[in-house]
Each structure stands twice: as C-alpha cells, then as structure tokens.
C-alpha cells in the first residue's frame, strides 16, 4: 500500500458466547480512503464494526490504528484516539436534544472538537434547524445525520459506519453520501462502512471488501467496484 495505513486488521476472531462469528478477518485501509464492506445478512459485518470500535472483545488477531496496536484498548480509549463510530440503528440518545447529542461527541476532540460544531451544521443544515429538538422524535434520516455529526464533531481520523442507508429515504441517502464524500475530501477523514444497499456502495465506495461466513472472501480494488462485479460476489 502506498498510502499511510490508518487501519490494519490481521486475523481477527470474535465470538458471541461460544459461537465464533469472525473467523480471521484481514483488511487494510489507507488514509483518506472510502472503503465499503458488503455481504449478506449474518456474515459478520456488524460484528466486525463492533470489534473495530471495541464494544466487542477480540478473541484473536490484531487491530492497528495509525500504526498503533489498539486490540486491548477499550472503546472509550479508541474513540479518544480518533475513531468515530456510527452504529447500526444510529443509537442517538433519544431523550437528549440534538445539541446535547453533539456535545457528547465533542468529548473525543476536546476543545478542538467543540469548534467543529459549525462544520457539522454546514454539512447537515437540518441539524441546525432542529438543534433543540429531542433526538428520539426525529426521522430515521435526521437521526442518521445526527449520528454522523456526533462522530464528526470529535474530528476523527477514521469513521466507521454501520449500514448508513438503513431505514433512510433514498433522497436523504443521496444527501448523506454526498456529505460523506465532502467530509473525506475536505477533512481527509478515512471512511469504512458496512452496507447491504448496492446503490450506496456504488455511490461512494472506492474499494470494497466482500464478507462471507466471518471472513473477507474478496477485495475489489479501485475501478473494480461496479454493479456487475458486486452483484456477482453477493450471489456466490
């Protein structure tokens, strides 16, 4: 890889109880890349994300972030090192306002993070309008924007998104994809996202990993992410 590596995952195993879900995941993501992970239901995509942020314990293998081994670092430590996490289902804090949700995100970046709130409102003007609304009363698309904004405000080097298009109407998905691209272009943020929606993958992923049965089974390089190839892999 020519670019500086942001994320290197080597032989990652993880279990739910006694059941091994991840069985040796390997991947490497360079600075400023937008990388998609695709795969059918239940192949371990969300588990991979939870392992990367540290909410699920790694049974075996190694995770390196910006060259540093973070396999044994807890989730809050990983966040403070600069990993932003946008979970499946978004997990905004429902009984807190939009502004308060964003405040939680600023803990990562410290004083610098707080200055980024204007930037978040520029990317997602809807959030500025709804600043004082309870997050739980917003639509799926608005919550998704809030979850991304909440991670972005901490100025992470790497953002992990778990199914950003799930439960979001298509026009908003397009808007979120455009925002993610701008974030990468303007801030240099590396983006890794899990997705089942082919259109989202095609819209922003430059490279793509295909997952099956807890492993990466194929890797599509830049220029290879097209509808035909992706479909082919999903149908295997």
């Amino acid at each position, binding site marked *: 890889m020519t670019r500086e590596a942001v994320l290197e995952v080597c032989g990652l195993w993880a279990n739910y109880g006694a059941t091994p879900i991840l069985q040796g995941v390997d991947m490497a993501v360079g600075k400023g890349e937008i990388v998609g992970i695709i795969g059918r239901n239940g192949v371990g995509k969300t588990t991979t994300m939870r392992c990367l942020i540290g909410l699920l314990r790694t049974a075996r293998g190694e995770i390196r972030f910006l060259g540093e081994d973070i396999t044994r670092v807890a989730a*809050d430590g990983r966040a403070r090192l600069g990993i932003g*996490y946008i979970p499946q289902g978004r997990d905004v804090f429902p009984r807190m306002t939009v502004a308060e949700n964003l*405040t939680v995100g600023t803990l990562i970046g410290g004083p610098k993070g707080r200055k980024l709130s204007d930037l978040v409102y520029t990317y997602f003007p809807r959030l500025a309008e709804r600043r004082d609304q309870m997050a739980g009363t917003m639509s799926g698309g608005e919550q998704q924007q809030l979850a991304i904004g909440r991670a972005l405000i901490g100025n992470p080097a790497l953002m992990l998104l778990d199914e950003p298009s799930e439960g979001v109407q298509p026009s908003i998905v397009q808007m979120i994809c455009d925002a993610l691209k701008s974030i990468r272009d303007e801030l240099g943020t590396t983006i890794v996202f899990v997705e089942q929606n082919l259109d989202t993958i095609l819209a922003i992923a430059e490279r793509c990993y295909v997952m099956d049965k807890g492993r990466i089974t194929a890797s599509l390089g830049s220029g290879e992410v097209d509808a035909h190839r992706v479909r082919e892999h999903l149908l295997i």
Partner: protein
Amino acid sequence: MFAELFSTFYQFADVFAFLILSAAGLAIVFGMMGVINMAHGEFIMCGAYVTVGLVHAGVPLPLAQACATIAAGLIGVVVEVLIVRKLYKRPLDTLLATWGLSLIVTQGLLILLGSSIPGIGTPEGSFTVGPYTFSTYRLVLFACAIGVLAAIYVIFMRTRFGVMARATMQNAAMAQALGVKVGGVYAASFGLGAALAGLCGALYAPTMTLIPTMGATFVVESFVTVVVGGANVLLGTAPAGVLLATVRMLLNANYGQIIGQIGMLVAVILIIRVLPEGISGLLVRRGR
C-alpha cells in the same frame, strides 16, 4: 388566617424536606445506574455520625455538615470501585452485596462505638406567626431540600458531566464508543448519591438520637419516594415528594402521625398500581 396557612405550609415543608433529602441520593444511584443501594441508610448514618463527631471536636455545625457530606461521597466512590463495579448488570447481586455492607457497617459500628453516642441538640432559634411558634431549623431543612433539587438540575442539565451522565444512562455502550469513561461516570454518580445521603444524615443529625441503625428511619421514606418517582431523578423525585408530602401532611393534621404514615404507604401502593414506572415513567412516555 395567614397563621393557619403558614402552619399548613410549614407542616408540608417539613415532610417534603424529609422525603426529598432522604430520597435524592437513592434516586440518583437507582436512576443512573439501576442499582438498588440497600446501604443507602448507612450512608445517611455516616453523614450523621461524622457531623456529630466533628461538632464534638469543636467544628462549627455547618462546616461539620459539609465535611460529612464530602466524607460520605468519598466513601461512596470507594464502595463503587470495590463492590458495585464488580456487579454491573446484576441488580439482585448488587442488592445483596449492598445489604450485606449495610449489616456489616451497622453491627461493626455497634461494636466500635456502642449503641448510641451523645447527640448535639437541634440548633435553637424559632419564630412566631400568629399564635404559633415554629422552629427555624425546620425551614432551613426545607431550603436545603429545594437547594438539593436545584443542584441536581444544574449538575445534570447544565454541565458537561451531566451530558455525559445522561448519555451513559440512556445508552452506556454508545456513550463509551464516543469516548465517555463510563466507569468514571458511574463512580461519580454513586459518589454523588452517597454524598447526598450523607448530607441528609448531616442535616438531620442535630434532630435525632444517634444509633447505628438510624439509617432505617429514613429508608422507608426514601424507597417509597423513589418508587413513586420512577427512574428519572429530575422528573420523578420532586413531584413524588410533593404528592406524598401533601397526602401525609393532610392525614397528619387530621388524624395523627400513625394514620399519616399508613395513609402515605397506601397512597404509594395505589400510585404504583396505576403507574408501575412511577411518575417519571408517565412523563417520559408523554414526552415521546
């Protein structure tokens, strides 16, 4: 007429202060962490004993009360780190562990300091309204209860710690994934709850006989207030205090203390029958 109205308010204020001061700490620990702290009464007792000890040593009462509050809070942090932390998400085990702690502390204190220590007497000072005489210290207690509610509001709604704490309460895993040191938030919340319990003991120390089991005097009231209020300290505890104090004050005035106590407990049963999640459960559901 004014004298009667004031007398009614005074009696309400007296019960309200007792309910809020004894329940605030328990409510925070339960609401924030889902932990039912059976040693709550012992933190109250700790506040009372430290206050009285310091006053006997020549420390002025208000300063002694402040020190007692801080001491109970620090002990709370230690208890969280040594005991409660090991039992997260095991509510029955925490209940048992804190109950065990409560027994050890009361019996230990009985051995160490005997069945009672000399009290310090209620601060003097009284005033008259019409034909009635009232104790100034009881109004100080009421002011303290209002102050505690205001402080809880400011801490949880207006500070960064409050934002972190509420985020942790709503979704601990997500809060942690955003960089919140969840363990620290829990230790601080437990410490805050213990400190408020200590404050309760410190404030009531001058009015009571000091015995190792004195916490039990407060425990029934604190538990029913928290149960009626529900898991949300801010939305639940204060309205529960108002409601129960009103019931009790009316019954006390007309039928005496015993009926007042019984009537309040009956009211609690009825409220829980109608609102199983307490008052804050109702308000939160409405707010959605």
